């Protein structure tokens, strides 16, 4: 289903998102595949129980055998019988900087993935299409690393105290001012972990008697934060504005479920780019709805900050909107800035409140100083304040890479989900055997990819996910595309029925973004 929307002038640019439907034959075969695996799973469990086959799972202590079992047998069925077979596609240990090319430690398994041994050999120069390195700041040399090294020798690695006690360094104040300037908001606050930013601040903002409207495919941290807050949670279909509007209308008209009292607040939780789908939130429409129904918007820009927008300011800039319309702008420093941690930006009252009542400010350690310095240097680079145009060049390179890569994959005939401008590219695999095969074949050809299956995705929609980076050169992308093409033919992954006619190779269209005159 292709959407090209120019919704009454709300969108200043075409919004191309596509989620091609699963071909019927493929769906049936996938279910058959899972059925066979389940049957074999039962058979092997039976054999293990009757000691015909050796049980290689770790077991409970002898002294505690009469305790209530810690895990239900059935919970681990999936783990034992399906996950174990293809376990070598995940948790691959690397031993170099996670840049465009990475070195991996070779590991083999002599007992079908139950245990791994490291051969000691290092596989060098694998093209890295799995790390979240959108702007290529994962570097071990250059201005960012030098600045971080200086701060490390001056301040040390840890902080040993919480923000409200003795952990608020002058570096943190500097960082927060910079983040506020970068986002175009009044004030910002930084935290030590992106996941914890969500799970510790949503409970501080909403509580019992409030309503949370959360997208179907929100990240685990948003779901956990919503649950911990104690508010009522209602889920709307992924990126579906009609579903959201209906929920908003019902909420205001009917009030709380049993008492019929009006809700105290309504908070809408959305993400900038959804990492499993590659889709971008329909921000203009969400903001229009939010204004009409007087609710608050919490935007999680974990993947979109730095990756979208002509100057890397995220999804708000991408749509040409004002940051003042978003009540809470949250993001992480892990992906585009090559560091760790998260931030929340917004009006001064909001940040003052969070400084006083956020769980993280009171009980959790603040950011480590060299990490703070990395964020400061990389953010200045993106903004152009370090005097070079490196940042701008990287943002443009990422956009170019995204468009090129997606176009070529579509031409080859794969089913690719998501928005044309999102640097997260999911390629559908569907069948369980192909998950393992794709990962292994690509590694043989020196390309590192990420494959995901159930439970991160719906059971038949397993996929391979490519994360593009500004550090990828055209040659690397071409090599990768060539190999993907080969593997696609080998594994019969070219499911798409909308084969595009390959366009004449034209250079990246400069007029797509509004350029300011230098």
């Amino acid at each position: 289903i292709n959407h090209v929307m120019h919704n009454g002038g709300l969108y200043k640019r075409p919004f191309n998102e596509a989620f091609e439907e699963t071909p019927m034959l493929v769906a049936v075969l996938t279910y058959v595949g899972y059925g066979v695996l389940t049957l074999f799973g039962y058979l092997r469990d039976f054999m293990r129980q009757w000691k015909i086959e050796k049980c290689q799972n770790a077991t409970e202590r002898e002294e505690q055998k009469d305790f209530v079992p810690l895990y239900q047998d059935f919970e681990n069925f999936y783990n034992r019988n399906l996950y174990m077979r293809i376990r070598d596609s995940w948790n691959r240990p690397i031993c170099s900087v996670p840049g465009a090319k990475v070195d991996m430690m070779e590991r083999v398994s002599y007992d079908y993935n139950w245990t791994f041994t490291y051969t000691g050999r290092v596989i060098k120069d694998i093209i890295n299409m799995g790390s979240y390195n959108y702007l290529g700041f994962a570097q071990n040399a250059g201005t960012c690393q030098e600045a971080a090294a200086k701060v490390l020798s001056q301040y040390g690695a840890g902080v040993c105290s919480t923000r409200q006690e003795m952990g608020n360094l002058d570096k943190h104040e500097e960082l927060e001012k910079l983040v506020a300037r970068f986002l175009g908001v009044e004030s910002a606050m930084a935290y030590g972990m992106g996941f914890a930013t969500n799970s510790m601040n949503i409970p501080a903002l909403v509580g019992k008697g409030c309503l949370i409207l959360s997208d179907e495919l929100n990240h685990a941290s948003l779901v956990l934060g919503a649950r911990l807050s104690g508010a009522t949670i209602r889920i709307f279909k992924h990126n579906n504005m009609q579903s959201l509007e209906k929920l908003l209308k019902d909420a205001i008209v009917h009030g709380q479920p049993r008492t019929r009292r009006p809700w105290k607040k309504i908070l809408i939780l959305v993400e900038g780019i959804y990492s499993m789908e590659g889709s971008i939130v329909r921000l203009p429409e969400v903001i229009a709805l939010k204004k009409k129904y007087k609710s608050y918007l919490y935007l999680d820009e974990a993947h979109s900050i730095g990756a979208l927008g002509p100057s890397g300011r995220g999804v708000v800039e991408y749509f040409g909107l004002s940051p003042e319309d978003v009540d809470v702008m949250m993001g992480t420093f892990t992906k585009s800035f090559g560091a760790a941690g998260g931030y929340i930006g917004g009006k001064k009252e909001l940040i003052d409140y969070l400084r006083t009542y956020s769980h993280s400010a009171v009980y959790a350690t603040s950011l480590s100083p060299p990490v703070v310095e990395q964020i400061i240097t990389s953010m200045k680079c993106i903004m152009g304040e370090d005097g070079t145009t490196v940042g701008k060049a990287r943002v443009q390179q990422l956009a170019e890479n995204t468009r090129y890569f997606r176009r070529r994959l579509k031409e080859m005939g794969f089913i690719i989900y998501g928005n044309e401008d999102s640097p997260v590219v999911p390629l559908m695999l569907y069948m369980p055997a192909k998950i393992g095969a794709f990962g292994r074949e690509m590694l043989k050809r020196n390309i590192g990819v990420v494959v995901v299956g159930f439970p991160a995705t719906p059971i038949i929609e397993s996929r391979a996910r490519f994360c593009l980076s500004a550090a990828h050169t055209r040659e690397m992308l071409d090599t990768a595309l060539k190999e993907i093409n080969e593997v696609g033919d080998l594994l019969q992954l070219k499911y798409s029925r909308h084969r595009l006619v390959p366009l004449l190779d034209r250079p990246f269209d400069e007029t797509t973004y509004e350029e300011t005159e230098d």
Partner: protein
Amino acid sequence: EKEELIEEWQPEPLVPLVPKDHPALNYNIVSGPPTHIITVNGKECINFASFNFLGLLDNENVKSAAQASLKKYGVGTCGPRGFYGTFDVHLELEERLAKFMRTEEAIIYSYGFATIASAIPAYSKRGDIVFVDEAACFAIQKGLQASRSNIKLFKHNDMADLERLLKEQETEDQKNPRKARVTRRFIVVEGLYMNTGDVCPLPELIKLKYKYKVRIFLEESLSFGVLGTHGRGITEHFGINIDDIDLISANMENSLASIGGFCCGRSFIIDHQRLSGQGYCFSASLPPLLAAAAIEALNIMEDNPDIFQTLRAKCERIHKALQGITGLKVVGESFSPALHLQLEESCASRDNDVKLLKRVVDYCINNGIALTQACYLEKEEKCLPPPSIRVVVTVEQTEQELDKAAALLKEAAQSVLS
């Protein structure tokens, strides 16, 4: 009509206004590293407020190990553990921690708070029962809330109360044996409590464990690297076999002067978290320079086992020196490096207590000893501890400095409280 309702509805403001002079709003600004001599709000003081127990924050070896790692790997890992975020330093740190604690396996988290808050919900689900001490820290409370299990609080360090709850649960079980066979039970305790500075009676807990068939989760954030002859924590302190404890969780932000946390125990238990620990699977891994700093800190701990004895001696010294201050009482064991000083006679309201203690703290900072009040979220804590001043002892403090701190506190209490 519906349109009218939509027009009329007015939500609350997203956040209430915080008054400008709220005590928690104005943070202390530390210029420069938070080491032994710390510059707080422009004044140079001796640091009695950061949990830098073994003084490793400023250690040159730790810093150079971190520098080497920075040169090799850069700063961030750009991915969770499952997707090219596992570095050889992480694997090495996990192995070293497991070997140091003498358990089978260890797992690392990138944030100390998230460690126990992700570990508990990985095992305890809706319908399971958790017996937890009243003085448990906030991270444990959040972990319990996320797990949706039945929580039963027992009075702080009161084994009789715990046994009573366990007996009650036993009689419940006999009424419904089918349900009892699938309900998991856990006891969650801390080795050295952050809120009260005392230890849990671990030998009695082990006896209760085997009598009532409950599993023990031990949170050792403050006792790791402090208690025991080699710093292995409370199990070494009491001489208990470490396999008797099902899960030990600790954060690396206190003794190891790094960031992050770890859990250790038998592979049967720890391996489960690799797929179901939320803070592990859905979050980026620990930056390698912090992991390298932690490995070097572990090396130092293993090579110099006498620092634990030195730390204990200093704790005893200051504990004795702080006795007898008019108006303030010392709360905590004599060997605990994190003590609390509470008001002997509290005024009518908590706010006034907090203001009074703040004046004491300010007096001390103005005269060269950096202290802080223990901060809590008043509305969110299950059992809010009384307001107190936190005193932290580190190996770097000399005996003169300890004495000076005690004298200054006496002076401050005299001038503010009388």
